[in-house]
């Protein structure tokens, strides 16, 4: 067992020069400890992706772990030359769908009638703080599809062409959908400000 633990060391010389898909190919070939490198690179983006939709720290971390477990389990299905992040977020989207299927109580849709318990709090009078809070709430209120799209484009570092690959549509279509999602966000932001 000892030799396996020694291999855990993530200090592979020149590793920063390796592309994600090259690392993933090594993982696929059995060097599973290199997966730690991909975790270091992408765990935060993946966590943001779940946290903004599930809104529960522990569950989001569990989901991140599930994704990495699936990556190990299905590593043989990774195609050489494919984009690792596109593959990883496709797995993540599946995990998210399953999560909401089994957790109906924490429904993907947030009840728009829910009162803002902090709206009268004098500590929140600072304009920027209130704006941030309103923006966060507006993001919760838009449709799940729009929310996911904005999260992917703002918090995961994925370029539009990769997001288009995840959704299996053209880059042009993605840009239009992001614009529509922004309009939805704006409408909710205005609603909240007027409440």
């Amino acid at each position, binding site marked *: *067992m000892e030799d*396996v*633990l020694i*291999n*855990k060391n993530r200090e592979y010389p020149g590793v920063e020069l390796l592309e994600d898909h090259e690392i993933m190919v090594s993982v696929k070939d*059995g060097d*599973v*400890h290199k*997966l*730690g490198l991909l*975790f270091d690179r992408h*765990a*935060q983006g993946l*966590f*943001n992706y779940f*946290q903004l939709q599930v809104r529960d*720290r*522990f569950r989001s*971390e*569990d*989901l*991140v*772990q*599930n994704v*990495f*477990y699936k990556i*190990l389990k299905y590593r043989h299905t990774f195609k050489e030359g494919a984009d690792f992040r596109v593959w990883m977020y496709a797995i993540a989207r599946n995990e998210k769908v399953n999560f909401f299927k089994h957790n109906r109580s924490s429904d993907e849709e947030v009840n728009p009638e829910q009162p803002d318990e902090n709206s009268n709090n004098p500590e929140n009078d600072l304009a920027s703080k209130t*704006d*941030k809070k309103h*923006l*966060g709430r507006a*993001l919760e209120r838009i449709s799940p599809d729009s929310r996911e799209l*904005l999260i992917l484009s*703002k*918090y995961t570092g994925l370029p*539009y062409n990769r997001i288009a690959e995840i959704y299996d549509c053209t880059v042009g279509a993605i*840009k*239009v959908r*992001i*614009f529509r999602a*922004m309009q939805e*966000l*704006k409408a909710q*932001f205005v609603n909240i400000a007027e409440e």
Partner: protein
Amino acid sequence: MECNNIKELFVEYMDGSLDAKEAQKVDAHLSSCKECRRELETMKSLWFGLDALEMEKVSDRLKKNIDNMIDSYGLGIKNTRDEKWYASFLKWLESLWPSRPAMQLASTMALLIIGLLTGFSIGSRTESQKEIVQLKIDVNQLQQVVMSSILDQASVTERIRGLTMTSKMKNADTEFYSTLLLILNSDSNVNVRMAAVNALANFTGNEYVRRELVKSLNLQSSPLVQVSLIDLLATIKEPEASSALINIINDSGANIHVKERAKKALKQFI
């Protein structure tokens, strides 16, 4: 160009990914359209406002969990690589394996009996101890096949049922334990992890299992699993557990019920 066509370019215009020619078109339109200018200003404040939203950071606990999962998985692969001539036969056997744990157990038992009978007949005919040893190894490999099919079960109920059945197994080996420990440390479902604690409770006679159970205490996120692990370690009076228990008691972030249980367990060691 109409306002709507221009607005659809706003997202790229804001993050600078629009090509120069199209950016010029947007600029030209904005200079003559007050409504679009206002719309762009609002969009900008929201678009860059999203960047300013504070995101929580990934915890060290998750990093530890992932490292542990990779270690356990790596160990499993290493063992598979060590397989000898019977590896391809077992792969073929695995492809024939029934998906229901009840059927899996029945098949294992049947194969076990065949294996033992063959072993005895060889033993009585040739008295060749070497061959019996080889057959025993094969039986151990079969345990692995059973375990890996539990790991592959998509449904939580099936995984729990599979784990419950492992209590009937005897003469387990390290690979078998490491698979159970992998489930304990990395299964996504709390109930499955709880079932893994119960399954491992049958094998606390093994030093490796006891050591890994102590390690697992720091890796668990769910208070339920932590409590059942503490109870198990207290029952077997594992001396190595005391420092892990003290860590929990001193950890400001630990669940209050878990802390209480840890204090109670620690008293049993003193």
